[in-house]
């Protein structure tokens, strides 16, 4: 189903016909379930993580001693993360991703229940693809996919 890896920087969407692999990060179990279901209905492959550290580990940015070669096989096309999480916030996760040479091209979408302009601007300024309001709806993912498609061209 997925194209061969090709060039190292090709971590954006290669084609809308191929399955998007999304990493969804949220400390709330109910929200994780919801995001997962919404993404699956929208034909995405979904991996969930309950906090920023787990997310980084999955992405291969965790403890260097624990990283193995398998991490790069599960190419992630999109990261959706909650903003408010204990420990590492979604914003901190965003920065870590954007600082990584391997992953900085991966779009990161931030979700928040609060509509705070300074928060939104801060995330967008640090490279977030989009900032979306929680709770997530089915129509939000369609919007998201369109936005991502348009951004590519």
């Amino acid at each position, binding site marked *: 189903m997925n194209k061969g890896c090709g060039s190292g920087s090709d971590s954006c969407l290669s084609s809308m016909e191929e399955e998007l692999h999304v990493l969804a990060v949220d400390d*709330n*179990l*109910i*929200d994780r*379930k*919801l995001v997962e*279901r*919404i993404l699956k*209905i929208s034909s995405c492959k979904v991996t969930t993580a309950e906090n920023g550290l787990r997310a980084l580990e999955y992405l291969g940015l965790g403890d260097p001693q624990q990283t193995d070669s398998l991490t790069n096989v599960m190419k992630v096309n999109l990261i959706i993360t909650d903003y*408010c999480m*204990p420990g590492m916030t979604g914003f901190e996760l965003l920065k870590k991703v954007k600082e990584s040479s391997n992953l900085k091209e991966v779009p990161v979408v931030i979700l928040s*229940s609060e509509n705070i302009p300074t928060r939104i601007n801060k995330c967008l300024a640090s490279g977030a693809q989009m900032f979306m309001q*929680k*709770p997530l*709806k*089915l129509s939000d993912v369609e919007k998201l996919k369109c936005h991502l498609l348009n951004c590519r061209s």
Partner: protein
Amino acid sequence: MNTIVVAQLQRQFQDYIVSLYQQGFLDNQFSELRKLQDEGTPDFVAEVVSLFFDDCSKLINTMSISLERPDNVDFKQVDSGVHQLKGSSSSVGARRVKNVCISFKECCDVQNREGCLRCLQQVDYEYKMLKTKLQDLFNLEKQILQAGGTIPQVDIN
């Protein structure tokens, strides 16, 4: 299939769910939740709300412990609990529970223990009330299906 029975049950279901919205127990997010359910995942909504009610019970318990001693309230803990509860209730469309959480957070922010205790009691009452209501709703769904009918799509607007 007894079409008259099915039609009656469907009508009952429709009226009941509309009343839950009108009385403010549920908001639009609950409809969004229902959209995520299909023949392949017929228990999705029930599973999610069940998780939510478990969450409520657990969080209320820990917050109650944090609020117990007047001289030693862990408001950070309480705030964390309220934040989680507010998030979850918002995600499932539990409108009344969510609204209590908003007041609850305000009491927590000013470290008002009495206010927090009142909100705690209210949130406990509201989630249990909603649990009963949704149980009745799910029972109606079951009856419709058992009678060979389909669950009506209900447009709240």
